[in-house]
């Protein structure tokens, strides 16, 4: 039996009425999901209207592209984070992980450059290395959590410190900078556009689309939701819970790797402040997007909207100067809570 994974209230009501329960459940589900997505979308629309009123440049194509490009990092990580949170887990280490991957990849590419003649090949190898490293870190998390039976919160709290400390160690407290020749070859990955849309935005779109397909159209996606909804029931239903969980962390690691390979060409360097608090931004994007922190239910569309919404707030604050610069974080906090409230009211 498929475990109910939407609002418990809707599910309970529909289950009580026995006649044509399936049909009712289906409509209930659809309505629930539809309204679910309304909070963040409504919030985003309101913010965009406010932004345009405050500064006409807000609605310009250039600004929109800047905004989407800078959202790509957090957005891609948030897609992976969405899986982990839906399965009932959490990952606090993604910011540090991104920083360590960025640093390691730069060191790797700088070391490879003299041995391998072609800079293009070096960059390609570096990109592959970033994704591989992410997958390995994710696998380590997954195994520690499932086989090691340690709370995800604890495991990733531990690696949060470990990853950043190693980056600081490799950087000797300063910055790790990419070789200039490599930087020139690599920079189009961030700065170039395809059909007028910057590459990171394309990558973000593809990752989000794949994420949505995996979550909603595959058996794996259903298992993830089932585990988050009720792990015991999923276990009884012969779902290989450990394997599914490990894969969610590997997926997240891969997402962090992809985000990093887009991040490195932006500044061509990694320092101990790289990716600071990204974990909280990614988690905020997922939660603002309507995914339950306790797991079980969530959507990729919501997550994408959530991530864009967070960037829009800081963008508007930068484009205007009506609010004291000391209150930026407060404005972000107010909007996050307001959006979450809109969601709750509509549930």
């Amino acid at each position, binding site marked *: 039996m498929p475990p109910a994974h939407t609002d418990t209230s809707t599910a309970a009501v529909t289950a009580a009425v026995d006649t044509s329960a399936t049909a009712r459940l289906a409509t209930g589900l659809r309505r629930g999901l539809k309204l679910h997505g309304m909070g963040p979308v409504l919030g985003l629309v309101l913010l965009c209207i406010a932004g345009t009123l405050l*500064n006409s*440049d807000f609605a*310009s194509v*250039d*600004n929109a592209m*800047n905004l989407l490009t*800078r959202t790509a990092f957090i957005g891609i990580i948030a897609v992976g984070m969405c899986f982990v949170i839906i399965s009932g887990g959490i990952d606090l280490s993604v910011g540090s992980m991104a920083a360590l991957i960025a640093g390691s990849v730069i060191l790797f590419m700088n070391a490879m450059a003299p041995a391998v003649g072609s800079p293009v090949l070096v960059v390609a190898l570096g990109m592959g290395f970033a994704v591989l490293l992410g997958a390995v870190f994710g696998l380590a998390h997954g195994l520690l959590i499932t086989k090691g039976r340690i709370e995800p919160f604890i495991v990733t709290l531990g690696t949060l410190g470990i990853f950043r400390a190693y980056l*600081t160690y490799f*950087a*000797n*407290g*300063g*910055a790790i*900078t990419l070789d200039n020749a490599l930087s020139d070859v690599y920079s189009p990955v961030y*700065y170039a556009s395809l059909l007028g849309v910057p590459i990171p935005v394309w990558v973000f779109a593809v990752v989000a689309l794949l994420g949505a397909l995996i979550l909603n159209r595959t058996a794996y996606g259903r298992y993830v939701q089932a585990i988050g909804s009720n792990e015991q029931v999923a276990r009884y239903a012969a779902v290989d819970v450990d394997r599914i969980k490990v894969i969610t962390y590997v997926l997240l690691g891969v997402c962090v790797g992809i985000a990093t390979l887009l991040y490195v060409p*932006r*500044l061509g*360097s990694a*320092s*101990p*402040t*790289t990716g*600071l608090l990204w974990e909280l931004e990614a988690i905020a994007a997922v939660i603002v997007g309507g995914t339950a922190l306790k797991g079980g239910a969530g959507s990729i569309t919501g997550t994408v909207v959530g991530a864009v919404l967070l960037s829009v707030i*800081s*963008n508007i604050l*930068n*484009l205007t*100067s009506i609010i004291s*610069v*000391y209150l*930026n974080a407060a404005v972000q906090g107010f909007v996050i809570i307001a959006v979450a409230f809109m969601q709750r009211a509509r549930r």
Partner: protein
Amino acid sequence: MNNRRTLFRTAIALAALVAGGAALAQNKVTMGVSIPAATHGWTGGVVYWANRTKGELEKQYPGMTVIVKTAGSATEQANQVQDLQTANKIDTLVILPFESAPLTKPVAQVKSKGVFVTVVDRGLTDPSAQSAYVAGDNPGFGKVAGEYIGKQLGGKGNVVVLRGIPTVIDNQRVDAFNAVLKAQYPDVKVLDAKHGNWNRDDAFKVMQDYLTRFKQIDAVWASDDDMAVGVQKAIEQAKRTDIKLVLGGAGSKEYIKKVMDGDKIVTADVTYSPSMIADAMKLTAEARVKGTTMPATTIIPSVLITKENAAKYYEPASPF
């Protein structure tokens, strides 16, 4: 009888010990150095300079021991200060406090036990908790930057400012910068000042948004070399040619190199060197060994680095 002899012997031994101790104290200094861990470029530089100076001092003054400890938070640093006093038996402490308020009490306590305390850069909330204070010149940092930008623009133009993490230091710098422009270059207009938090990524975003918002920017006061990296990338991406000058600060080796090599946009830098920890350690060591008094306050001036003097400040081995 026997007892009395023992007592007598003990007294002699004690006297010898005290005399010996006093003799030792004249040249044997145990210095604890407590600094924040290398979490960003500037503190990375502080750690580098502290370790380097430890070696120099121990060579220069035989018998001197220098113990360098780095802390990741104010609490950790407070614990370390305590440990240095109780376990390592330091008689001299050079400390760059993580935060002013939480470290005032622990440092005051160490000082009350007879330890000589030199506080560096970030002050304590109660100056009586320190024996000496060595710091960078924050108002000077803003003033020198303001004077340079005003002069380079010929007294007329639009400037955007990137601020650091909201702190007293940042306020002092920005206030001094604004004051100089207002007094000497009233036609230089500061379009806006936002926080880039001494962080490359934040500076990149803030600069992108400045570029969207302002069609004509003549100069950027990035106020920090880390932030200048992000600023320059944003300008490159937007392909803007109106910006004639990006002025960072703190004197990182990359930016000093740029100034040395005659970069078109980065023509100068303003020092606020992490090597001030080295100055503080050297001044303190000298005063302790020679028994001279150290000035209560030593301000290390912020100076302008230009192509002419850049080589003097270039330190390739430093991580910053």
